[in-house]
């Protein structure tokens, strides 16, 4: 009954995932007690999935409750094998899993909410780019002898834009800092947001649709002038000053692109 190391490890993991296969690995254990103890490894595996996903999706956890979340984590861990020894990378395909498993049939906004939570999770570990302040931006452009409108702006590594047909940003926001959050607004509502990390604090801030469009244009490499021109065509009263002030305060940009 000799077996290669690779085959032994394969059987071990198969038995972790499929309890009915415990007999196939138990024959390789040196004591009869080990078969019962093997269940601790199985328990560890599901606890690890649950813990890692709870860390990445705290609002989804609050929404579905501990019991449902644990069952969901078990199903996810089996369906989407962990691809890294770093548990902080576990969970990136949960939005897709919510569709595959049919959960989004009853809760269609869960997909976009999960997308948002993964954006926030990734932002937490993103690189520590410098944050470009509005005075620094203005000063740098003056020194270059260029108009502000000529500048392109690189976004901070932690920054990402979010858009949904559901009120994901509002749902996320009401679940911060309250043990008994309640959301009494309309779920079906187009929303736009930007994920930022000023002072290490990862958060999403709601945006007006035109502000989202302008930031998307900047992200796509267009100049500040082009980005603002696009939204001014939609709304001549779009407040450039207040929006620029908000964007820089949120630490959205890291550097100037002047090419």
């Amino acid at each position, binding site marked *: *009954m*000799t*077996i*290669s*190391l*690779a085959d*032994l*490890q*394969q059987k*071990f*993991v198969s038995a*972790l995932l499929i309890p009915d296969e415990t007999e196939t690995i138990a*024959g*390789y*254990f*040196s*004591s009869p*007690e*080990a078969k*019962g*103890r*093997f*269940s*601790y*490894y199985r328990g*560890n*595996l599901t606890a*690890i999935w649950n813990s*890692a996903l709870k860390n990445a999706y705290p609002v989804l956890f609050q929404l579905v409750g501990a019991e449902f979340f644990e069952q969901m984590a078990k199903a996810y861990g089996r369906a989407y*094998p*962990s*691809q*890294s*020894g*770093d*548990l*902080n990378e*576990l969970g990136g395909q949960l939005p897709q899993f919510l569709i595959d498993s049919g959960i989004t049939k009853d809760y269609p906004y869960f997909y976009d909410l999960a997308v948002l939570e993964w954006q926030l999770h990734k932002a*937490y*570990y*993103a*690189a*520590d*780019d410098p944050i470009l302040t509005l005075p620094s931006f203005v000063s740098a452009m003056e020194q270059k002898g260029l108009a502000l409108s000529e500048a392109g702006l690189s976004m901070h*590594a*932690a920054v990402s834009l979010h858009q949904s047909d559901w009120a994901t940003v509002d749902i996320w926001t009401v679940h911060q800092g309250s043990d008994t959050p309640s959301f009494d607004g309309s779920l079906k509502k187009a929303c736009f947001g930007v994920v930022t*990390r000023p002072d*290490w604090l990862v958060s999403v801030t709601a945006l007006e649709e035109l502000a989202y469009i302008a930031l998307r244009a900047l992200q796509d490499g267009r100049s500040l002038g082009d980005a603002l021109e696009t939204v001014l065509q939609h709304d001549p009263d779009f407040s450039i000053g207040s929006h620029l002030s908000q964007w820089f305060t949120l630490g959205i940009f890291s550097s100037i692109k002047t090419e």
Partner: protein
Amino acid sequence: MSRNPVSSGRVGSRISGVGVGLRSQHYRHFLSEHVPVDWLEVHSENYFGDGGYDLFVLQKLRENYPVSLHGVGLGLGSAHNYRIEHIAKLQRLIERVDPGLVSEHLCWGAIAGRHVNDLLPLALNNAAFELFAARVSDLQDRLRRRIYIENVSTYVRFIHDDMDEIEFLSALVKHTGCGILLDVNNLYVNQMNHGEDALQALNRLALLPASSIGEIHLAGHTQTELCLVDDHGSCVSDSVWTLFAHASELLEQDIPVLIEWDTDIPDISVLLAEAKKVPRYQNGLVAGYAV
């Protein structure tokens, strides 16, 4: 307390004395006041990000405390899925914090296409030894430093094992030049779970070349219906303290000791109280050898 300032503004990297595992629940405490521990240990993977708050805190605390990096996700004994990307992230972290010691576990944790993210029990046979030794050598070559391998607690052993864990680790030291991170709690857990003689293990480890054991771990375990579970969620048991007193008698002096706590993280004062006990057992002031 050893303080060994260097020109970078950091204390030196060498770990000595008694350390505790740094957990996020204690960040605020460590950032707001000086905590009387000699060094800190972190799980390497928790600081693999490109940036962010955890890394900021670690680098800030590194100014005042030497750091030991303890890997939990590489799974050196996995026949498949040994990831070079993981080692590259470890190398980046090493460059960032200049650790005094880097350790991994005598375990495996992945098959082709799937990581299990656990410290799974390695078959202690010749094939596993060849693989593990090659991996340790590869890791040491890539990182250009000595790696310390920790003995692990297990709930199962395999029928075709050719050697016990101490024989495996001793051969590993001989063949690769790696060191050992000795977890005294794990020795005790395996003694209770598998009847492996922990005191005899210490006597055999004492025969290794000088400096082979670079760090000692102490942690709590839980007695369950089926066996002892190494859950790191309670104070060090009296039996493990006694075994540690033996280790202190038998092994070299001044091996750095860590109080390890990973689940149900208590107030920092609980960890510090545990850390305070270490010198008493090192100095043989506490009798009672019923291991």
